[in-house]
């Protein structure tokens, strides 16, 4: 196969412009515009059914857009599909396998689909990195769920893609594997690969991603650097722990929305950091003679951003995976 040369002028790794997608009556994407520069680690978030997989599948070629433009390193995903696909490596959301083959054969065949015949050195490294070396001669049926997941990641990387797209790679994997997948993502990112990651675990996005887009009902409700998104949330959760039982909060604390626990040992408040409330809280604490023992301020996490921005759309049961993820 021809070697695909990535164009030199700084075209973005992924360029999505005004993309819509209708599945019959259902509008999955209602006008998505997104540009991901080379080397970025981008997090695509959103509640179930928001349209994340649809967007990813349009990039990989599994789904055809209804309108708009999608380019991978400047190559249109439909017109220049061979060039664009050879630059993309993707782990689909569903766990799918070809049961006729062993781990090694799977990687060998995958290499062949990408036009590579002499790929043994890299395949060897992938097997090592993903801890599949000892299972290389097993058929896929004989692998555990986590091993299958790792095999999918290895498959996606077999042709050293310039952009790696992971659609919920850590769904249903144990803590150790999750950490090792994070390490792998960080490693390939450090090596210069552009990474797009979809996840329902907001701590994962907070930990890994530089920039985050939150999709809801097929449009971006947020698209910014992670820190800036978190700054936009003004509320701070303040917890006060007392060394002795307190009988009722001072008036000023109550006015700031403070509530006292039943045992009188803890007070919690939600304080807006932008209107001087925090200042008033500290002054009130200085004046009052409360038996203060501990004082915590919790900043807003990505989860708060997520919940606030998608609040009216996500039904409670659909929101739970995201909310639980931080626990």
């Amino acid at each position, binding site marked *: 196969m021809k070697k695909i040369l990535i164009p030199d002028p700084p075209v973005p790794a992924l360029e999505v412009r005004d993309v819509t997608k209708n599945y019959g009556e259902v509008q999955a994407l209602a006008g998505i515009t997104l540009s991901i520069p080379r080397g970025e680690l981008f997090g695509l978030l959103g509640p179930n059914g928001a349209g994340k997989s649809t967007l990813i599948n349009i990039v990989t070629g599994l789904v*055809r857009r209804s309108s708009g433009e999608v380019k991978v390193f400047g190559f249109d995903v439909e017109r220049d599909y061979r060039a664009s696909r050879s630059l993309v490596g993707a782990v689909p959301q*569903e766990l799918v396998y070809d049961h006729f083959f062993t781990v090694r054969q799977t990687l060998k065949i995958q290499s062949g689909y990408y036009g590579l015949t002499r790929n043994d050195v890299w395949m060897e490294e992938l097997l090592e990195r993903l801890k599949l070396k000892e299972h290389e001669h097993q058929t896929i049926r004989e692998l555990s769920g986590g091993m299958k997941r790792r095999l999918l990641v290895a498959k996606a990387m077999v042709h050293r893609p310039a952009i790696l797209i992971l659609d919920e790679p850590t769904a249903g994997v144990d803590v150790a594997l999750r950490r090792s997948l994070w390490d792998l993502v960080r490693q390939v990112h450090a090596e210069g690969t552009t990474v797009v990651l979809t996840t329902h675990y907001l701590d994962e996005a907070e930990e890994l991603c530089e920039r985050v887009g939150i999709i809801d009902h097929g449009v971006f409700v947020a698209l910014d650097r992670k820190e800036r998104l978190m700054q936009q949330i003004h509320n701070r959760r303040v917890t006060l722990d007392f060394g002795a039982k307190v009988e009722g909060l001072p008036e000023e604390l109550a006015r700031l929305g403070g509530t006292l626990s039943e045992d009188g040992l803890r007070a919690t408040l939600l304080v807006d950091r932008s209107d001087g409330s925090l200042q008033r809280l500290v002054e009130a604490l200085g004046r009052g003679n409360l038996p203060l023992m501990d004082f915590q301020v919790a900043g807003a996490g990505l989860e708060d951003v997520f919940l606030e921005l998608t609040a009216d759309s996500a039904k409670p049961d659909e929101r739970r995976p995201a909310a639980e993820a931080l626990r």
Partner: protein
Amino acid sequence: MSFPEVPSLLPVPFRTLLYREVHRFFIVINQTLLAPVISALLYLFIFGFSLGDRFGSFHGYNYLLFLVPGLVMMGLVNNSFQNPSSSLMISKFEGNIVDILMAPIGHGEIILGYMLGGMFRGLLVGTCILVVSCLFAIPPFSHPFYLVAVALLSSGLFSLLGIVAGIWAEKFDDLAMFPTFIITPLTYLGGVFYSISILPPLWRTVSLLNPLLYMINALRFGFLGVSDVNPGWSLAALAILDAALFGICLTMLRTGYRLRK
């Protein structure tokens, strides 16, 4: 794995897909090769040996020899159809079709990969049936080049049909319709077991609408030098059908019909 590492002009993705298709049916060789050969053997035994004497001769050949080309064609078309259609259906069902859909493989390469995989299986089964029948009677191989051309075009045609069916089918049940309602009746009524000269005029005319009739007779012409229909026209029609079906497959892949949502 014995994946061919030899330098080659053929594109690697195509060779890989072809390798996969062939490997797939070799894993279940009993089902894919042995079963059709045994059933052909049974036909030969029952019709050729046991009942054959009562049928007399067709076109000057004894019934056993008359039967062989039809049985070879039957194995050929069934297996050429089976390989791509079931491969595609299983891949869609298990979801691993995405491997091919996400890879930078050209549409023509995909079709040729599945097509040649199916042809290989069909021709292998056909050859095995022929070899086994030679134990009973050796045909004269009257027109060997014509014979090879017909075998290639026929297996190609049914492989392509298998691709169309495999893409179109949404359940295994959809797929089962093809052998049951189309391929088997057309082969049986296409003169595997008889010459249409024995049919009443009306049925003879109706039979002429059956494409399998031309294919079976063309193969018989290659083996025995006799045919109910014009062998030149049969070959030309076969080539045209192959080209048309290839075009249909190409259009299906280009538009993403039932493969890309």
